[in-house]
């Protein structure tokens, strides 16, 4: 590696090597990132909050010494819905204007403990409501592969920043595909851990029973490193699991010969772009070459996933977002005449259209007289979806599907048609409903040079296997090495 190579284009594991050899310093990395951001950010709009002086200061303040952590000196960007103490954390929403949490999310604490350098916050769909990062109050983020197109969402800022080398890696959150879908559309690696693998403490809730924080990285090895860094039981989150965390980085390097991989027919339906289908088929062929045994399977309740999701997720969201009421923090509307007036004006001014749509939808689903027909029934079907996976995993070690039915679409193309937009997550939602881990890795490009992602789903708490399949595939392909021309 030559010293004139831009450090911001490297992966975390490459930088860890260089840092340990003493070839570079954290400031060098930070400077390259800042340069990239200054050159590129205007056209991308991937970042919600970034203060280069602060980033440099954090770099300078890193403790030296023998107890340097695993990520010592490695810069990281954080999605704007993950709490960082005394730093703007706004969920890209006007209603949290100026909000600085008084505490760190557990994932942030863990990263800081091992020396990672917090750089700033990435843009997102408002409160993670969206699949295109167009609902942000800071304006849409653009896809580095085509600036006319969306980067996916809701962690579009994190995916675009990593793809465009503004970031080494980043944290996202995934409620129905918000890590995997933008990773797929931006040509990077994204992993949604098993529900309960990573503490949700400090993640501003969208849908509490579905949300997970996870890594968005340039390659699988970084995903393994970052996942290990943030995983584990947390006393502050009673839904986090007390199950040991594996050494993902070393386990991924084993082969995949003999692993059984299921290909569910419900994921190759009409509406899936032909180029996407073809790429996935080639990827399956590649996995077979590596020794995996791929067989067709079925997940019969897949067709209900989107409906179930938009009832469960919005119901929880309607309650989770009630607290943004103008009383304690964030926006409070001016010229209010009464308590009720404060609630109404604040929420009217503070929430964007999509947030309002989901709050109304969720409130309706929970209302007396409708609860049984909607929310309660959705929970029952959710159980059936989970049972589909349980059954498939009796036979298979993992399941492989397209991450998204299409590659990236144009900005503005679907924003006024929520139903079409909701279908962008058709292949990612089931994993959240079932609580299982899933990841997306680059597996090809369309003729228009837009990235295509391969989704790998695994058994609960078996991130090891999906990372291993992803790593083996990545080692035998070159997709992840392609960079957008900016």
């Amino acid at each position, binding site marked *: 590696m030559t010293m004139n190579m831009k450090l911001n284009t490297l992966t975390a594991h490459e930088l860890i090597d260089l840092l340990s050899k003493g070839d570079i310093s954290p400031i060098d990395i930070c400077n390259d990132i800042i340069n990239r951001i200054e050159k590129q950010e205007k056209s991308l709009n991937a970042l919600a909050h970034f203060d280069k002086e602060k980033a440099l200061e954090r770099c300078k303040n890193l403790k030296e010494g023998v107890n340097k952590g695993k990520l010592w000196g490695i810069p990281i960007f954080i999605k704007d819905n*993950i*709490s960082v103490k005394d730093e703007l*954390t706004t*969920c890209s929403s006007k209603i*949290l204007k100026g*909000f600085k*949490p*008084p*505490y760190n*999310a557990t994932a942030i604490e863990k990263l800081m403990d091992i020396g990672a350098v917090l750089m700033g916050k990435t843009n997102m769909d408002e409160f993670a409501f969206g699949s295109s990062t167009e609902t942000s109050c800071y304006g849409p983020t653009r896809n580095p592969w085509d600036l006319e197109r969306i980067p996916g969402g809701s962690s579009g800022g994190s995916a675009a920043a990593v793809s465009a080398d503004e970031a080494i890696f980043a944290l996202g959150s995934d409620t129905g595909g918000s890590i995997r879908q933008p990773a797929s559309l931006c040509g990077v690696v994204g992993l949604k851990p098993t529900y309960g693998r990573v503490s*949700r*403490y*400090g*993640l*501003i*809730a969208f*849908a*509490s*029973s579905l949300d997970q924080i996870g890594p968005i990285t340039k390659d699988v090895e970084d995903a393994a490193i970052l996942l290990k860094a943030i995983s584990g039981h947390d*006393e*502050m*989150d*009673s*839904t986090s699991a007390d199950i040991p965390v594996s050494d993902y980085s070393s386990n991924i390097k084993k082969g995949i010969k003999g692993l059984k991989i299921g290909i569910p027919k419900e994921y190759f339906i009409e509406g899936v772009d032909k180029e996407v289908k073809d790429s996935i088929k080639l990827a399956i062929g590649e996995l077979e070459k590596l020794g995996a045994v791929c067989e067709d399977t079925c997940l019969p309740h897949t067709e209900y996933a989107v409906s179930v999701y938009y009832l469960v997720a919005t*119901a*929880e969201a*309607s*309650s989770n977002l*009630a*607290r*943004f*009421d103008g*009383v*304690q*923090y964030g926006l409070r509307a001016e010229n209010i005449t009464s*308590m009720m007036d404060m*609630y109404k004006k604040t929420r009217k001014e503070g929430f964007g259209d999509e947030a309002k749509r989901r709050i109304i939808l969720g*409130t309706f689903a*929970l*209302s*007396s007289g409708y*609860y049984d027909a909607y*929310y309660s029934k959705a929970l029952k079907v959710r159980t059936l979806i989970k049972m589909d996976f349980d059954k498939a995993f009796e036979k298979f070690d993992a399941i492989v599907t397209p991450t998204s039915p299409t590659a990236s679409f144009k900005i503005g193309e679907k924003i006024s048609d929520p139903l079409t937009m909701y279908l962008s997550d058709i292949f990612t939602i089931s994993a959240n409903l079932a609580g299982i881990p899933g990841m997306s890795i680059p597996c090809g490009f369309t003729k228009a040079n837009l990235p295509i992602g391969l989704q790998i789903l695994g058994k609960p708490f078996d991130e090891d296997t999906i990372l291993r399949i992803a790593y083996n595939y990545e080692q035998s392909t070159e997709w992840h090495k392609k960079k957008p021309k900016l």
Partner: protein
Amino acid sequence: MDYEIVIGLEVHLQLNTKSKVFCGCSTNFGSAPNTQVCPVCLGFPGSLPVLNRRALELGAKVSIALNCQIAEKIRFDRKNYFYPDLPKDYQISQFDQPLAQHGILTIITGEAEKNIRIRRVHLEEDTGKLFHQKDSSLIDFNRCGIPLLEIVSEPDMNSPEEAYLYLTALKSILEYIDVSDCNMEEGSLRCDANISLRKKADKELGTKTEIKNMNSFKGVKAALEYETKRQMDLLEDGKRIAQETRLYNTEKGVTEPMRSKEEAHDYRYFPEPDLAPFNFEKSFLKAIERDIPELPEPKKNRFIKDYLLSGYDAGIIVSDKNTADYFEKCASLYSNPKTIANWLIGDISAYMKDNNVSIKDLNLKESYLSGMLKMIDNGVITGKIAKTLLIEAIQTGKDPEKLVKENGLEQISDVKLLEAATSQVIAENPKSTEDFKNGKDNAIMFLMGKVMQKTKGRANPNKVNEMLREKLKGAR
């Protein structure tokens, strides 16, 4: 017309845990506003609740003491409504799967026992407190997240008096199992009442009103008495009862409508996704069961049987656990339990009332009381002396036996010493002497009183009686 009164009570009880139900903040009462708060109880974005096991333990303890069936699975729900004292704009509570159901609480009405059914017991978090000022409102979030147990009765009470007895019996049990301060003034116990009237023959319940804002058990009774009369007057006039929430105005002694129109709330309950449901472990419940002491009802029956107390006396003594414990310790040291009961219910309880102290703070060891009673039995002191001796012992904290010796309070039974006093009294009270001679037996009591006066209460009353009669016998 004859009406039946139908009353159901909803009690909210603050459990006396050290920390709040979903975070580590202190539950101390009376601290400066907003000093016992954290991101969790303030409902900050991203914060998550974690259940305090102690609160669950205490809730289960109450449920067992009220003979409830405890749920196998513990689950919480969100109750959604907007109000500034509720930082998340939802309350973590329990909806269709409460902690416990189907309990029984026995009350004593006159000589009869009556079982009041408990519908449900559930655990939830308390809200903050609003302070309304002229053109603004302030919020104290200290109370936010203090564990609350809601105990809902069936509408099984048929008079304000029964409601009062229910509350006293409930409080007594809660104090026995030491789960709450049960202090209505400090708000650690709150009570709302539902009341309706129906004609005796009617099967359907009448329209009910909900009464809030009572701050003592007597207040509950008074409010229900007022409301009974108000409803009865309306019904007598052929008018209808409006289903509404009414506030009790303590100063005026009346109930007043809280809102002109009852707003229909849809709380949109749904399972709390931040707290995973879990099953009660059998061993956990067994440990709680073992931790429950003998409760007032069985204790009372035992006292009647073992100590031959009257139902009335036993009832009073067991209504406070410390008094019952005190009684039993004395009974182990002294052989006449009835006498102990008399003193406890009489002089000692009067002293406690006058000086506003509880038996726990009373400066009188069990051995001191039983020692004093033995002195009476053995003729060392008179019952009359004992009354003042008791007060002195409490006030000084000294052993009554020691006080008797120090102050020379022993009873005078010596005939020689009493001879002079009795003769003197006879000589000084010719009228009473004459009355006695003329057959007025009561006059002897007057003469005895005089002898007592002369001996400062120390004379053995039996001896004096005997001697006076002997001396006046010849004359009669």
